[in-house]
């Protein structure tokens, strides 16, 4: 057994254990992104940093072996600042939106992309439920709103915005009490400010490079008939299918976003760019890879490490700032991970690897 001091309290730890285990079993939470129990440690994200007091240096606790007599600071200001800086750096190249632009500018904060997807897949019942849920017994705000959502809609820059407002109103008509009477005093109430107060952290994409706008079109597979006026559900489904899924598939399950909120990170204004936004979608296996969301933690590479030559998979390319996760130079994205797509999607701490669900999406 080894003796170790964590935040000034002494503990006994088994020889050969890693710091993170010791610290966690001592009751201190340790944030991590690139680390997963059961997968070889890698020390990439550096958000699990702790201070080795005796050496006056910082070490990633996920890959540091406990040594006898260590004194570790896990909650000091220095440690917090360093962890938070690591997150800030990661966000500075995280060209991704947690929430879609339409939802961010929506004064009511309605979950528009999800609504669109339900309409497109023909599940109008569920779309109605969501709408009703968001109203919480009040009237729908769209009727008073000029349609900020459509102004923010990324599709607008490609051809024309998705007819969100009309679709929303079309569905709301079937919700009791959603559409107010024109004489209702609520019609004269001002709209809430389009600030995002009270809502969750959302990373931003920064300036788009030429050609990047079109990448989102890949989300809209199949033939689409556009219409501004929504007269029936079939027309609505056609129009809704033109939604480009700007919201992140991992919005509710992103460790990077959770940590940003925990550490109170502000998204950096300028984003570092070295490679364009690219959406790679395999419509057979449903694997989606968005390089601009990747934090290069390598979990997806390591989780398949022991599989030998079984099936083509993801690997690192290049060195340093320009390193990326990719299919191999000799293969095609369409051929990789035929059997193990779920495994890599599950370990990805962000929305870089996710699942494309035809029908539902």
């Amino acid at each position: 057994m080894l003796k170790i001091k964590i935040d000034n309290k002494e503990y006994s730890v088994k020889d050969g254990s890693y710091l993170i285990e010791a610290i966690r079993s001592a009751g201190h939470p340790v944030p991590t992104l690139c680390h997963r129990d059961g997968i070889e440690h890698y020390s990439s994200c550096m958000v699990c940093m702790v201070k080795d007091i005796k050496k006056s240096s910082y070490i990633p606790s996920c890959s540091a072996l406990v040594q006898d007599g260590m004194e570790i600071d896990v909650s000091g200001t220095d440690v917090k600042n360093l962890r938070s800086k690591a997150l800030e750096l990661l966000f500075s190249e995280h060209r991704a939106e947690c929430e879609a632009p339409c939802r961010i500018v929506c004064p009511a904060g309605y979950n528009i992309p999800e609504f669109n997807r339900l309409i497109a897949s023909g599940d109008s019942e569920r779309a109605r439920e969501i709408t009703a849920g968001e109203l919480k017994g009040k009237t729908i705000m769209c009727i008073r709103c000029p349609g900020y959502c459509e102004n923010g809609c990324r599709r607008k820059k490609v051809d024309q915005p998705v007819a969100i407002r009309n679709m929303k109103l079309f569905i709301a008509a079937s919700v009791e009490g959603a559409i107010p009477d024109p004489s209702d005093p609520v019609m004269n109430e001002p709209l809430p400010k389009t600030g995002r107060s009270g809502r969750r952290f959302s990373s931003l994409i920064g300036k788009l490079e030429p050609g990047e706008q079109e990448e989102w079109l890949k989300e809209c597979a199949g033939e689409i008939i556009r219409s501004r006026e929504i007269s029936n559900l079939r027309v609505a489904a056609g129009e809704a299918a033109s939604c480009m899924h700007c919201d992140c598939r991992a919005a509710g399950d992103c460790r990077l976003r959770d940590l940003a909120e925990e550490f109170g990170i502000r998204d950096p204004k300028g984003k570092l760019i070295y490679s364009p936004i690219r959406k790679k979608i395999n419509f057979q296996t449903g694997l989606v890879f968005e390089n601009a969301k990747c934090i290069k933690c390598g979990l997806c590479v390591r989780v398949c490490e022991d599989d030998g030559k079984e099936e083509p998979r993801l690997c690192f390319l290049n060195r340093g700032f320009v390193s990326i996760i990719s299919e191999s130079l000799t293969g095609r994205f369409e051929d990789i991970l035929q059997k193990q797509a779920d495994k890599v999607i599950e370990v990805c701490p962000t929305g870089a690897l996710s699942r494309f669900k035809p029908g539902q999406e």
Partner: protein
Amino acid sequence: MITEKNTESGCNCSAGVPTREEINSVVERVVESTGKGSDKVILILQEVQKELNWLPSDALKHICEITDITPGQISGVSTFYSQFRHLPSGRHTVKICAGTACHVKGAPLIIDAFKRELHISEERNASPDNLFSIEEVACLGCCTLAPVVQIDEKTYGHVKPTDARNVLDDFLNNSKKKGTVNTAGDPEKWDAEIRVGIGSCCVAGGSREILDEIAEMKEKYDLNIKLKPVGCVGVCNQTPLLEIVENSDMKARYTNVHRGQVEEIILKHVRPSTFKNRLRSRINDLVDSVISDDKVYSQINLPVEKREKYLNNFLGYQVHLATVNSGVLSPDSLEEYRMTGGFQAIHKCLRILSAKEIIEAISGSGLRGRGGAGFPTGKKWEISHAAQGSPKYVVCNGDEGDPGAFMDRMLLESFPYRVIEGMMIAAFATGASKGIFYIRAEYPLAVSRVRKAINDCYENKLLGKDILGTGFSFDAEIFEGAGAFVCGEETALIASLEGKRGTPHLRPPYPAVKGYRGKPTLVNNVETLSLVPWIINNGADAFSRIGTDRSKGTKVFALAGKISKGGLIEVPMGITIRDIIEKIGDGIAGGRKFKAVQIGGPSGGCIPASEADIPIDYEKLAEMGAMMGSGGMVVLDDSDCMVDMAKYFLTFTHRQSCGKCTFCRIGTKQMLDIITRISEGKAAISDLDELEKLSLYVKDGSLCGLGKTAPNPVLTGLRYFREEYEAHTKGICPAGKCQHLIKYFVTEDCTGCTKCSQDCPVNAIPFTPYERHLIDQELCTKCDNCRIVCPENAIKIIGTNA
């Protein structure tokens, strides 16, 4: 088999696209000789690239088909190391050194000049005729000849931007000639022994031609001389160096020898053996003296004292331990190494000393790792000795990637047997049975010398089974690095040996306990190993008597930059920086003012002239914010800009970062962005604080030494030269270096000779004979050509605000 496309364009397959069958047969042939293990991936890629000149994706595919290598591994590895090319390139590669010494002497302008001359664009790195491609290399290790350009194996030193065409022409005209040198002589009674340096710097300076010339003379006059190529003398800025030894006391040395002088020098010392030849030489001499008066002023006729004063100063303050017998030993003669005391240390170790006694001697000597961090060598050996596991390995770290440092290259080139002996001692002491020399691929000469030395040792039973009949067995081999600075870090080096991407991991476990293939692996730097035989022969005390309290012995430095007499020097620890610069280096070149010295390369820092009296010592340098590093010492004068220097180093570390940890991968990028803004005059004063804060985070948060030390050049810059940074935020570069903040200006001294106009590559100077020239600032690319060619010195660099 050559494709139609290639025959049409008239070049061989190296510049075009080879067929699938061609590729497959190359790959199969290579794999046959290398083996199919996944750890062989780097070697296989290197060999395939040697044949095809690049790596077509079909080649990668076929390698995966017939070996254990996976597509993921081959993609990751081949894109990680700079050596590998995935696009076809020109038949010849123009390597332009971007090392520190070359940078301060204008390498960026040279790169621009060659790009212009060869019409190389962003999209296509090959000249239109597919003859040349350009490659920027971190350091060619010829710092004293800066700026240096290497085309294939031929090196050109002191290149000016206006020389690009000449260099290319010279290469094309001379590339076919290849002389072989006959060095044999009558061993019994030579009239003289002629020693010619054949270290990389000397070769780059033209010593091969000198050798050829002497060999020709030997035939022509039937001279009874021994022609002997020797390793580096360290006087690298005065190459080629010729030394004539008539008997043991009589030595004459000539520096900066050029081909035309050889005959005269030799005949001055050696009499032709027959009367007819003597007469011939006499007449030649007579004719020469009539038709040329160059001779009168050439250094050949200077009195000996004057000629050698500089050399004596240069060599006088040095202490040669790692480089003992420099300039005397032939680098490829095992016999000579033995005659001068070589392999006595390993004899002593194998026959008299126990492993424990050897480790005690090394510990007692106070020797610390010469790779940069200064970890006590004895301690490392002890850990490795105690570690469980078999077999154990010793790795000689010769991945000297530090731009501006070339001491490991010189040691490997000049004293390969000594490094091998050092490694054998380390192996015996730690119980290792296998040794690997990790040498960077940019050092082909070092690789071939060590390869020959290893073969010699095998032939002489100094390597292999039961060495010298003592029962000790040890094998050694070479692994060529593929171009990644980060592989100098020992854990990354081991990853690279194992055929992986060279990313470091957190220690412990230390390689000494769990290293190559999971076995105990002792990793020592080249210089560290070269000092080992000396310590064993002369005793720990003799070594620890040299130096300071905590830093013992000597350190080899590569002295370059704006120094009068640069070169490779070995000095005792504790010597002051000022002594090195003023006494050994003979002060600053060109009468300029000594501003700072950059020690330790990209991990080190700039120490200002005002602090030059500090002694060289690991701790002292660290205190100053610099670092011993691997020993690059680049001297800067008042025309060097500290912001530009910091930007240069950051660009380097940023490019060389492996990309594993957040702080190094993204942090160095953000730092580089800020410093670029500063150098362009676009930064606010608050950016300096931001840069400083970020630097400290990167220092604290990075995983390995590369990231932890990358901010040093910036931090020392801000510490000692803050006012210079502040000036940049006001749009002024006091040194007149930062391109965005300067312009070229023609003074009234202009005579209208039109030279500048003719040499301007972008036609920014109208052709106006006998009138004062004008520079169109819109068109000017600041290539510096006009200023170089102006005979009146009428072109000045001024601030954009002026």
